[in-house]
């Protein structure tokens, strides 16, 4: 027990000592995951909304695919991305293997189905008559979607939170695609694994605490926005 307690003490001391390497790792984690989440939102929210409102022949299959995508094992995504980005793969010209952009790509593939699925189900909770009513008022398709999205923005924010959570804590895919290269592709999760395997438990705990802390702060901010909007909505 003492061993764990001293690990925590050393870990917290490492955080406050302003250790440059620790902060560089944290910064990269945030950059990669935030960038990936933003891209996933830009793709997933309109896509999910579109799937929900439009009628088309294979709709049920597409919805199943999206739902399956939500449960996609991240490490398998990482393996496939690595194979595609490798020198013998079709996307080798991008030269993204062992770089942060490759990690962003993997994270986008992981987060987009999550955000799409949640946006889709949020959209399906709107009365379909509402969407058609807006169309009859003369709105274009995209305009109508935008109005509907405004109605469910609380749920959309929940999708964003879920998408971000699914990638900031991911370790397998970024390890395979990024290679855990010091000061280039080492992020909080992969660094924690390395330090743990090397028996540097104080460092591992420091990184783990930062990861939890960052995730908490970002979710706090997003939840704050979400609940503020909820209050404003309820006050109407």
């Amino acid at each position, binding site marked *: 027990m003492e061993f764990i307690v001293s690990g925590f003490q050393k870990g917290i001391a490492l955080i406050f000592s302003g250790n440059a390497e620790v902060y560089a790792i944290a910064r990269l984690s945030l950059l*990669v995951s935030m960038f990936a989440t933003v891209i996933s939102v830009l793709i997933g929210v309109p896509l999910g909304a579109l799937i929900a409102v439009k009628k088309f022949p294979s709709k049920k299959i597409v919805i199943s695919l999206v739902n399956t995508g939500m449960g996609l094992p991240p490490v398998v995504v990482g393996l496939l991305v690595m194979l595609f980005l490798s*020198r013998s793969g079709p996307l080798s010209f991008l*030269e993204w293997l062992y*770089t*942060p952009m490759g990690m*962003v790509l993997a994270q986008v593939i992981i987060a987009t189905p999550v955000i799409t699925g949640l946006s889709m189900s949020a959209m399906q909770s709107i009365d379909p008559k509402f969407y058609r009513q807006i169309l009859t008022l003369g709105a274009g398709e995209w305009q109508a979607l935008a109005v509907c999205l405004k109605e469910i923005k609380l749920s959309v924010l929940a999708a964003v939170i879920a998408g971000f959570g699914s990638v900031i804590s991911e370790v397998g895919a970024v390890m395979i695609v990024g*290679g855990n290269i*010091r000061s*280039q592709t080492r992020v909080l999760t992969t660094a924690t694994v390395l330090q743990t395997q*090397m028996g540097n438990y104080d460092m591992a705990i420091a990184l783990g605490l930062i990861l939890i802390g960052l995730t908490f702060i970002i979710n706090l901010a997003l939840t704050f926005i979400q609940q503020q909007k909820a209050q404003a909505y309820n006050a109407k």
Partner: protein
Amino acid sequence: MKNIRWMFPVISAALIFGCQAKNGPQNAVRLVTTTSVRDTGLLDVLSDAFQKDGKYTLKAVAVGSGQAMQLGKTGEADILWVHSPDDEKQFVEEGYGTDRTTFMYNDFVILGPAQDPAKVKGVKKAADAFKKIAAAKAPFISRGDKSGTHKKELRIWDAAKVKPAADKYIEAGQGMAATLTLADEKNAYALVDRSTYLSMKSKIGLVIVSEGDDALLNRYSLILVNPAKFPKVNAAGARAFFDFVLSKPAKEMVEKFGQDKYGKQLFFYDYAAK
């Protein structure tokens, strides 16, 4: 408020692309090396020194020698720094690599629990030590990942003409430090390179039970991946790193490495560096 939301991805994109510009693809050299080189910290020292003048970015990925040579065979790596002599010779013979240069060595040690249930202490030959471990049915942790260490271990089992009981032989499938940590937790015997052992000595309870046999010598080599076979290889960058490691400044760094921290020289350089 709306504007701020859009600024965010733009700033992140700029930052990430900014970092990418620094690691320009044409300047990136892909080194694939062993976990023992990384786990001891030697890789970091040489990597920093090589990248100091900013001419090249070193993408150093640490995996077992087996996987390293596999990456070499598909042209994913530009240069290998490995320690599996038989596999290396075959690699070069089959035309995948050139300029194989053995330049550095250390040795392996057999680690075991302090109480030494198999009574290995004092045994001079590694094969005999392994015989005793198998006879005593003591747990043994193997790298199990076709790495240089793993191949060395298998050769010793071959020489001993014996294998431990299946339930006593655990294949970790991980790097050197991870395997050592696992062996320590399980209070088992293991074959570990001396440098990794020294770098982790303060954190583990296992002790050296056998050392010094010639069979435990561990030689590291550099191999250039054959650009004739794989046109995408960064041949110039690989050659630059190759020349750097075989230079006098690098030789000094290798020989000095670990002296202040562990009081002992961890790696020995036996190439006539210019």
